[in-house]
């Protein structure tokens, strides 16, 4: 399956600002989609779509800040760059406190905006890659049997096979087989890598709960 192309979403209630941003961003080859309101964005944005959001702070109906809160509630990781007008600095500060990626004051230098967008897209790609990797590891660990999970827990504690066999009340040979299975299913090349993978998972994901 091919990855969807990262898209810059522009949400601004002013048609002229919206169109000019689309024109500018397309002139530098950035795929851009514009929306006139926060509600329109929430209704159409698929969370799987990578990109970033260029958002006007001050809009009627739902403000940029409210949209940011909605996205936070939904667990969306899309980086948000706020654009603010004159005297909106306190709002921009609030946005930053709620995890905004950056903010710019209107009117801005095109290069400033483009630089921030590039950084935001890079951050989004990194976040998504990390989430995907996490997901891949989680799915691998899901295939472990309860017994293999027990062996995994002891392995990550650094216990030798002999001790494990005694702890579990099985033969050393059986431990060796489980151990090989854990390595095979997790795809870890070494014990060190296996430990790193386990650390990446939440406690309930490690135990299969």
């Amino acid at each position, binding site marked *: 399956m091919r990855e969807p192309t990262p898209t810059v979403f522009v949400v601004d209630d002013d048609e002229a*600002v919206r169109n*000019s941003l689309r024109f500018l961003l397309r*002139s530098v080859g950035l795929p851009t989609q514009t929306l006139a309101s926060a509600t329109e964005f929430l209704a159409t944005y698929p969370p799987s779509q990578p990109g970033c959001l260029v958002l006007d702070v001050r809009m009627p109906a739902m403000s940029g800040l409210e949209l940011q809160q909605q996205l936070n509630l939904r667990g969306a990781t899309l980086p948000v760059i706020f654009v603010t007008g004159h*005297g909106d600095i306190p709002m921009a500060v609030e946005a930053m406190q709620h995890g905004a990626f950056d903010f710019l004051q209107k*009117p801005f230098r095109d290069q400033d905006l483009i630089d921030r967008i590039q950084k935001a897209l890079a951050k989004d790609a990194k976040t998504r890659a990390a989430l995907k990797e996490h997901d891949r590891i989680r799915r691998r660990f899901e295939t472990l049997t309860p017994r293999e999970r027990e062996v995994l827990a002891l392995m990550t504690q650094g216990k030798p096979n002999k001790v494990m066999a005694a702890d579990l009340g099985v033969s050393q040979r059986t431990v060796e087989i489980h151990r090989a299975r854990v390595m095979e299913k997790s795809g870890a090349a070494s014990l060190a890598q296996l430990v790193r993978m386990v650390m990446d998972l939440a406690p309930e994901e490690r135990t299969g709960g």
Partner: protein
Amino acid sequence: MTRVAGAAGPPGPPPPDRDATEPRAPSGALHGRMLQVSRLATIGEMAAGIAHELNQPLTAIANYAQACDRLLGKPGADPRDLRTALREIAAQAVRAGEIIRRVRTLARSQPVERSAADINSVIGEILELMQTDARVHRARLLLELTDGLPQVSIDRVQIQHVILNLVRNGLEALSGSGSAGGEVRICSGRTGGDVEVAVCDNGPGVLPQELERIFDPFFSTKPSGTGLGLAISNTVVRAHGGTLAYRPNRPTGACFYFLLPHETAE
């Protein structure tokens, strides 16, 4: 004859404690007036709105111009793209011009409803509103109103906006200075044949080098000020045949005052 009233002690019984679930019943006529004043945007809000509105076409112009510059730097730029952008730039410049024209004609274009009024009652109608502002800024609002002033022919709401704007400027100057004991004093009186309203504060006052520019549009000494409040207030007072001016307050602070010609018997 002068009445002096402090913000802390309005005449009559003390106001009952406010209950969140049971809002205090507003006193009919006064409340109606206050609603009327607050429904119309105050000068400060209006100014912020204008600045915001002006920013939109400017942002669009900057974006289109910078995009054209980029397109021209690439080989084989499509002239049709450039034309689209250039036409938008022209349209947005016209839009910005219209906004500025609206600011200029603000005082004149509004339906002016002038009637004979007693300036003290004009001030009295917005007293509660101003006292709320003063409380927010932890400052005292004092009134020194002279009785028996001649009537003035004014648009009440517009003049109330001017007074509100001057009071808010004074309160902001006080909170900027950060010292306790801040006071804003509203005085009415007679100067020559005119009726004078003065709004004085004991804040830091206006610096000598700023004096020449304080009434200029877009000049502001506040970090997030639009620089339109005094400019619009000045336009409103002048449209009434009056003048708005500044003098230093004694011993410290700023004093903005305006003179209105009194109603002549016809």
